[in-house]
């Protein structure tokens, strides 16, 4: 069954009813990411996609308020018309998760704290969420944060809601900071680097004063699946850094970065239109979309250790990697196995990640695996207990997306 409230008041009524009757609700927007997280189905769906619209947008104040069900592309188009964007580059994981492209909602972006390649320079979705209205599992309608840039009044509840996958409250409205679009985006690339060399090059670029807005590495196999013709044609791995700004600045920074990379491999570049395509496909992890029979992991690790983590895993598993965030974000496609073997694969991956500092999310896998394996990184006993106390402070009866993140949460 599916409940589709038409306004925040009805969201409150629906959750109050569910709380009274202890009915677990699957909270969702357009369900573009319903295959992400633990497989823990609920009898009732709370569908927030009817809460759509942009009641407030002031470009000169760099702030927008949107109802959670507003399609991401509507938000993006509205911003673009005023020369602005969401600087953290929300990804469209639809195709990677086996759904069509372009379905996602703005609420889903913040509920899952999704950030693209620019995260390494400009911050994550959570950094841009200024305020929210929401209904908790007690059926209480509340607000947190505000619409101004600088606010320390009370606890920063927005941070808790961002990335909580709808397990604490069903947001009805989000207010976020937006920024001007860069005048241009260009890309400097090194061809043919091994993973370790690539991480070193990306680290140096990110340590430089040359305004690097993204640093990614596509090993040869992933590069061969790029939709950018020149990258496919090169037949080599690609290490790419992104520069943004007014044209003179791009020329200046690009020149210095080329100098910095001199002698490490053949250098190439992408112009503005090609750069747009390239960084969008990296953002959406498009090179992994064709790998339909593989399990996809998302690893967040100490950036300088990215390549060694992958090497450690590759010793034991057949895996293909894609590096973002200068080595700090690794997409890993591993051979699909049945549940016992998959359990041991997860152990291999999580041990390697823990050793380097970070965590691993089982991003795409069959529902039965996502029901049996921990999808999110298992937490320390203390953090798990505190998370449970927080969950119960918002949702004492566990009716909002129960089990979506952790079993029992």
């Amino acid at each position, binding site marked *: 069954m*599916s409940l*589709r409230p*038409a306004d925040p008041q*009805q969201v*409150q*009524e*629906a959750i*109050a*009813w569910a709380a*009274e*009757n202890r009915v677990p609700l699957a909270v969702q927007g357009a369900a573009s990411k319903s295959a992400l997280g633990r497989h823990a189905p609920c009898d009732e769906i709370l569908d927030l996609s*009817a809460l759509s619209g942009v009641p407030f947008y002031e470009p*000169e*104040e760099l702030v927008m308020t949107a109802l959670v069900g507003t399609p991401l592309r509507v938000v993006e188009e509205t911003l673009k018309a005023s020369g602005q964007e969401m600087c953290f580059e929300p990804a469209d994981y639809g195709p990677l998760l086996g759904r069509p492209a372009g379905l996602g909602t703005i609420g889903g972006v913040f509920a899952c704290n999704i950030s693209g390649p620019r*995260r390494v320079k400009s911050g994550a979705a*959570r*950094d841009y969420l200024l305020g929210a209205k929401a209904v908790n599992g007690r*059926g209480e309608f*509340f607000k947190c944060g*505000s619409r101004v*840039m*600088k*606010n*320390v*009044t*009370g*606890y*920063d509840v927005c*941070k*808790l809601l*961002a*990335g909580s996958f709808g397990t*604490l409250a069903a947001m009805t409205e989000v207010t976020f900071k937006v920024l*001007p679009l860069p005048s241009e985006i260009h890309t400097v690339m090194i061809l043919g680097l091994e993973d370790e060399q690539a991480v070193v090059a990306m680290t140096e670029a*990110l340590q430089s*004063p040359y*305004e690097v807005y993204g640093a990614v590495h596509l090993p040869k196999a992933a590069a061969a699946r790029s939709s950018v013709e020149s990258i496919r044609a090169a037949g080599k791995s690609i290490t790419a850094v992104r520069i943004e*700004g*007014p044209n*003179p*600045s791009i*020329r*200046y920074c690009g020149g210095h970065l080329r100098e910095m990379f001199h002698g490490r491999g053949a250098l190439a570049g992408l112009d503005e239109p090609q750069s747009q395509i390239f960084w969008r496909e990296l953002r959406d992890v498009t090179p992994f979309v064709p790998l339909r029979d593989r399990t996809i992991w998302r690893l*967040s690790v*100490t*950036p300088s250790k990215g390549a060694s983590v992958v090497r450690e895993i590759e010793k034991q598993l057949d895996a293909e990697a894609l590096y973002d*965030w200068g080595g*700090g*974000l690794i997409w890993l496609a591993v051979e699909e196995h049945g549940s016992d073997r998959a359990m041991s694969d997860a152990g291999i991956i999580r041990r390697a990640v823990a050793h380097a*500092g970070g*965590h691993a999310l089982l991003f795409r896998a069959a529902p039965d695996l996502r029901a049996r394996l921990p999808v*999110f990184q298992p*937490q320390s006993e*203390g953090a798990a207990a505190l*998370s449970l106390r*927080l969950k119960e*402070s918002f949702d*004492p009866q566990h009716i909002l997306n129960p089990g979506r*993140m*952790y079993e029992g949460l």
Partner: protein
Amino acid sequence: MRMPVPDPRVLARRDDIARALRNILPADCVIADADGARVYETDALTAYRQIPMVVVLPRTTAEVSAVLSYCRREGVKVVPRGAGTSLSGGALPLADGVLLSLGKFNRVLEIDFPNRCAVVQPGVTNLAITKAVEHAGFYYAPDPSSQIACSIGGNVAENSGGVHCLKYGLTTNNLLGLEVVLMNGEVLRLGGKHLDAEGYDLMGVLTGSEGLLGVITEVTVRILKAPESVRGMLIGFSSVETAGDCVAAIIAAGIIPAGLEMMDRAAVQAAEAFVQAGYPLDVEALLIVELDGPEVEVDDMTARVQDVARQCRADLVRISTSDAERLLFWAGRKAAFPAVGRIAPDYYCMDGTIPRKRLSEVLRGIGELSRRYGLGVVNVFHAGDGNLHPLILYDANKPGDLERVESFGADILKLCVAVGGVLTGEHGVGVEKRDLMGVMFSETDLRVQQRIKCAFDPESLLNPGKMFPELHRCAELGRMHVHGGKVPFPDIPRF
């Protein structure tokens, strides 16, 4: 200011408690005599003072944990303190509480340039982080004006800002990891050198929690490569309105300056008299704009800001030609508070944030309040992010002046909220704005926040009396009251 009534049973056991703490810590890390403890009686909100029952200065995380476990077992309240520079009374001690100073946690533990971060103890000062990494051309971005003295642990507790927030964010946007000790003594390590949280963003909610949720014992911050070039501009206007319009126009032109400050006539005059920064004295409002990045980009932005200023009918545009000149532009702004200290016996610094475009309306409102209360006011403003700092002038020795100032200040903050702003942009709620929380938040909003407190500290022993106007028992807050749940949503479409 009403604080929680001291518990006579705890006060009666004062000597036992001090003795027990001396068993946990070396004797010189426990201060129980009133003279020694008096040093800690106030923070930078000096209107409020209270000598703490006992002061402890633990040296390690294990000692912090042992102190908190003991206090929880014994039902003793604890007030954490960094450098004591809070402007909202966040570190105001309690008569029946242990004051826990992180003063001995003063080491930089690790600098990791490849991962662009530094791991430091909470007592390290904000500026010391930059000092520790500047030899390699790096810096730590948030720069509250107390940065010489304030500690990074306190910055985390207050989510401190500074003049570069518009472009570089607040403390919360520049953190990667925390070690924190909960009131039950449990030690949690959150985050690390990677870029996002694995579960709930516990680090995010701890940041800015004003010492009510846990005691920070280690901090991992992001450090940034210093920009190649930094340039300052002074832009003068004959009215506050046109200055405000110019701020909006700069941002509408797609430029995000590293700093964008505004001073009103009174602030300009006071600052110029104090430091001779070369400010024009015939303007009603002065903007200080700082642009940073590669030199060519700074050139480009400077030219564009100049165009915008001309279109906004600026009376004066001056561009720094050297770093010394740029720092001189800032010298006046950074000395604004002490400069105001010279023109009045005392001043009270407020800290509301407003939507930028309501600026002239709010300044007019503040002017009216100033006349009504008969107290002068000077305005400095982080114009880029809408954070307003009115300084109310008064004389603490005049009977009734402090009460009038507080009432004036409260009216300013209510005005900020009324135009869509907030009570505090960077100084925190503390004891100062605690009783105004209801202006901004509903009862339900506040209950949601107080239940978070319960999840971390169910007995409310950590820094009670701050942030929330009323202390509710957690059992009462946790009870379920479902309103309207019986009605099976008559109007909601079902599928």
